């Protein structure tokens, strides 16, 4: 155990901090669930990429700067501390990226990763189907081999920001006689291919944050398959592990929220203290975010020594999603009657960004595998309890 950062790590932190201080605008971007905001975020991603800060852990040859996991944590800490924009291409960068690193051919890596790092290609995710939400193995969308192409038919849903995306990655049934986890393949699909139809889904807040995607005899080259034919489940599960795990929700995000919550409480202390639980929850939020950060450093240290992220990814998912929900609920309690106001309300003040976060936090226990599914995984795989 050596809890000092190396000189190199310190220098990196200083560099990132300085760059962000110079480049993050005080004026927040529009929501990335709108066309205008999406483009603003893409523009921001390009600036990050230009300074080799979009995917710091990727090799330099693929658009990154070859950082290790500790440096990645440092980057994330500084990123969130600076109040920089949310990452708009995270489906590609954080979910597909690591999968390509592990299962992609050299040609596939060269073809997709640098453009992904630069947000030249924006990626949508194609996991869920109308009857395959938490039960991902119930997928029925097909990818039937026809020469050197697959012909896709079926429907995907809950694809975040897909109406603005260029590409989709997802699981398709390549063996029509197969069932459950077998006979699936992991395929990448350009969303401008004939036969693709995208229908937006409005979220709770009225924004078109998701889409349904329909595939009607969509032809994609066999080269667009990641991993072997029929091995899609194995490839996807590795990705799902990344998603639930650290990458998608690095601790800096929650530590930043906890600090903002403390400031919100301080600014409204007199009214907040009429409910004595608020003060306690504010302190618990700091503790929860700090514990999540400590667990991340512990995990990263073990990964550096050769361990793999296992079922503890499921505990991560539960912890960050419930922490995020608790912090935003507490903010709503502090804000009281102002909590319901939208950003366009003249009296909303600092409240509206918390409301937006509160609404988004509702989805935390649901996406990337519901928390019920995670609890099943913990019970069955970590604790060895019998299947239902």
């Amino acid at each position, binding site marked *: 155990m050596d809890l000092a950062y190396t000189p190199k790590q310190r220098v990196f932190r200083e560099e990132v901090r300085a760059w962000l201080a110079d480049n993050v605008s005080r004026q927040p971007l529009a929501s990335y669930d709108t066309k205008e905001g999406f483009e603003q975020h893409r523009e921001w991603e390009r600036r990050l990429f230009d300074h080799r800060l979009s995917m710091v852990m990727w090799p330099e040859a693929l658009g990154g700067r070859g950082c290790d996991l500790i440096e990645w944590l440092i980057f994330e800490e500084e990123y969130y501390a600076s109040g920089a924009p949310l990452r708009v291409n995270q489906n590609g960068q954080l979910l597909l990226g690591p999968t390509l690193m592990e299962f992609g051919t050299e040609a596939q890596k060269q073809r997709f990763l640098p453009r992904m790092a630069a947000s030249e290609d924006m990626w949508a995710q194609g996991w869920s189907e109308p009857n395959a939400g*938490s039960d991902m193995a*119930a997928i029925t969308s097909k990818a039937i081999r026809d020469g050197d192409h697959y012909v896709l038919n079926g429907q995907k849903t809950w694809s975040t920001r897909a109406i603005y995306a260029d590409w989709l990655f997802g699981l398709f049934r390549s063996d029509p006689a197969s069932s459950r986890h077998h006979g699936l393949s992991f395929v990448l699909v350009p969303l401008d291919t004939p036969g693709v139809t995208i229908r937006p889904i409005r979220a709770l807040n009225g924004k078109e944050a998701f889409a349904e995607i329909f595939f009607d005899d969509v032809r994609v080259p066999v080269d667009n398959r990641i991993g072997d034919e029929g091995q899609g489940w194995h490839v996807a599960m590795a990705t799902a592990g990344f998603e639930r795990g650290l990458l998608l929700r690095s601790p800096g995000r929650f530590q930043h929220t906890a600090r903002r919550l403390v400031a919100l409480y301080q600014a409204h202390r007199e009214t907040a203290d009429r*409910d*004595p639980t608020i003060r306690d929850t504010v302190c618990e939020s700091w503790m929860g975010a700090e514990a999540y950060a400590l667990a991340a450093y512990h995990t990263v240290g073990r990964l550096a020594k050769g361990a793999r992220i296992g079922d503890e990814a499921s505990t991560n998912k539960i912890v960050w999603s419930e922490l995020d929900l608790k912090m935003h609920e507490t903010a709503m309690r502090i804000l*009281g009657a102002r909590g319901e106001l939208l950003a366009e*309300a003249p009296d909303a003040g600092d409240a509206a960004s918390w409301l937006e976060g509160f609404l988004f936090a*509702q*989805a935390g226990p649901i996406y990337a595998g519901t928390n019920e599914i995670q609890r099943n995984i913990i019970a069955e795989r970590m604790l060895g309890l019998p299947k239902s």
Partner: protein
Amino acid sequence: MDFTFNDDQLAFREAVSRFLMTEAAPEMLREVWETDIGRSPDLRHKIAEQGLTALSVPEDCGGLGMDDVAWSLMTQELGYYAIPDSLADTAYVAAGLITALPDSIATRSEWLGRIADGSIRIAVGHPVNPLVADAQPSDLLLLSHDDEVHAVPRSLVDVIANPSIDLSRRLGHVVWEPSSATRVATGDTGRALWAAVLERGVLSVAGQLLGLAQRMLDLSVDYAAQRKQFGKAIGSFQAVKHHLADVATRIEFAKPVLYRAAHAVAHGEDDAPVRVSHAKLACGEAAWLAARHGIQVHGAMGYTWEVDLQMFMKRAWALDASWGDRGFHKSRVAGFVLGDAAALGPGRTFEE
């Protein structure tokens, strides 16, 4: 000692429920949301036709003279159907204040008559609420200036719209000048009126929150019974069952608290404020839990605009902090519980 409703009261509730089920389906709500005013004159007209605007108006002013206890059933129905209207503000909260005005206020009986026949919409600007619900579409606003009560025609105020996450809420920041022409009560009288309005306003949202909780539970039960995953209805999974059983339990144990509070207000009992705050907290907790477990049971569908759950959930979140947030009500309860040892313990539930 009989802490139940009589058959007439239960039949009244049933009739209101049947009426609103037909006239205020979720599709109608969605249509109303799209309008500028956010209100349906047609729905209001039908409500008035049913006599629902006349519930609290005294019988000698053309009303039915029903009390807060009856309203605790009515507000649950308004919540259950998420009625996008300030009906309760006009026909219950404002009606209560105006009824209590002295007869010397010339327009008192005119206003009560118009409440009863449904031809007036009254917004109530109690200081506990920073913004005034339905200020924009109102005909008359009851506004406070220190202890004074002012009844101000809509034409004399400016309203700055403040949109809420609940599109059924139409909140306004009201800019106005008090004058002797609009003043209807002052001093102790005004203070007492505002105090009484507060309890009715809180009871009104408490009842609506409980109705919203029941609606979210019903929607979740329906969804869980139909939606299949891993080859089974998700409602057969223990985690889903236990989530929804907890919501049902919370609702069952909030109801009598609401009724007890309504009785305390109707009979001017000393501990009415504590009972009312208890009701608001209990009903708010039930609604909050119904939303939390409701969205969890609905999965990603619960996060969409398309599925009805969102309408009730967002309204529950918004109403929970209206007419006093949790801190306001918790501090009223704490003042009682930690201040008056004599009144605690068994045997004090119905006797002061």
